[in-house]
């Protein structure tokens, strides 16, 4: 009998949520790899999404909050391509949709990125792909492996991952980024249900994505 072997047999099982833990850890590393480590400020509040969110008919939305002090000039976003093909996007500031779109396309994501303008007249710019099934509320049921952190955002709050290989052939991934200075959903299109940020001093950033048909206004490349 090897006494060391007996201790081996006492090792607890891996956690059931190991994949979630792994990806949360990966997101933190991805943020560090993309540049200066994001500043963690005392008092930063993260807002969890309470339920399914829809914009117009089918935009999946997630909510987080940033303190105004988290602005980093010149680094509105970061995009990190990982070895397994996933791409982690970290949003630091809402001012460079074109830059993010260009970077994602260069990494193989047929993306159209837009800044959403809260208001009742706002409509998603890309046409939804009717082949994608929707749930009872009209929200698209995105492929399960399209985004690892969707809609549950990792601890850093503004990061999410995209798996380009999960985008159906011929489709465009529409990404909608919006900011609601009032940190509430009053100005968003009718039918949008959002959880109010827990911290009223935080500015809510809404990140939505859906699969769309390519068009002249929504080319994806």
């Amino acid at each position, binding site marked *: 009998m090897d006494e060391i072997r007996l201790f081996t047999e*006492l090792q607890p*099982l891996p*956690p059931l949520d*190991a994949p979630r*833990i792994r990806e949360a850890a*990966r997101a933190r*590393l991805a943020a560090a790899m*993309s540049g200066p480590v994001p500043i963690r400020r005392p008092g930063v509040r993260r807002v969890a999404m309470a339920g399914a969110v829809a914009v117009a008919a089918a935009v999946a939305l997630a909510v987080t909050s940033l303190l105004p002090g988290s602005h980093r000039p010149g680094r509105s976003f970061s995009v*990190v391509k990982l*070895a397994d093909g996933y791409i982690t996007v970290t949003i630091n500031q809402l001012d460079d949709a074109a830059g993010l779109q260009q970077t994602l396309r260069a990494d193989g994501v047929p993306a159209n990125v837009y800044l959403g303008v809260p208001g009742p007249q706002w409509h998603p710019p890309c046409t939804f792909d009717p082949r994608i099934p929707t749930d009872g509320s009209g929200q698209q049921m995105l492929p399960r492996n399209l985004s690892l952190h969707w809609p549950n955002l990792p601890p850093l709050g503004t990061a999410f991952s995209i798996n380009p290989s999960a985008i159906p052939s011929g489709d465009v991934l529409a990404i909608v980024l919006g900011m609601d200075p009032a940190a509430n959903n009053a100005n968003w299109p009718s039918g949008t249900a959002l959880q109010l940020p827990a911290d009223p001093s935080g500015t809510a950033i809404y990140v939505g994505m859906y699969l769309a048909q390519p068009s002249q206004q929504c080319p994806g490349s």
Partner: protein
Amino acid sequence: VLTEHYGRSNQPGLANSADGAERANPTGGSRLSDADIVKASIGDPRRFGEIFDRYADDILRYASARLGSDLAEDVTAETFLAAFRARTRYDLSRPNARPWLYGIAVRQIGSHRRAERRYRQALSRVRAETVATDFSDRVADRVTAEQRRPQLAAVLSGLSRQDRELLLLVAWTDLTYQESAQALGVSASAVKSRLHRIRARTRQALAEADLAPPEKELATSAQENVEICHG
């Protein structure tokens, strides 16, 4: 309750037998070593993600076994963040980064001593109801380990911190003795010597338990655990 993930083959003289570059390359094609990737990541930080992809599961499993799932995320993330920040100091003569990462993980775990004590204490109480359903050749070891769980947990708690780190690194990872030595920054001969001492201590504890009446045995073990874990 254990899975075959933990079928380890820690044997002296098998240094680098579980090298990441070889292990994860079933096709036999050329593949960059960990050292190559770490070196590349100095110029292109994003390359370090490949190190994470190779070893995150190992580190996560070990951190979870040591501290539970609540702290596993922090330890896993902080291990790779610390490794990322220290990559310029990585010894590029070592193709396999696993010992380095485990060494960092051990230090991260060490910063959670209170949680580690609590989790270790719980080891003595967990029962393994499904052991009898396993018909592998490890079943005898498993049954013995489960029957002796209180005594083994007491031995674990009674070890010095350095010996306990070594024992759990050898028993709960697939590091070789030499890799464990690298991870802990000690010599291979020190590892062998300390493991010899741990084996002897374990044998003695189990033998003493065999001589003791069952009721007294359990009471003594429980008391030992309480005293050690709240010390």
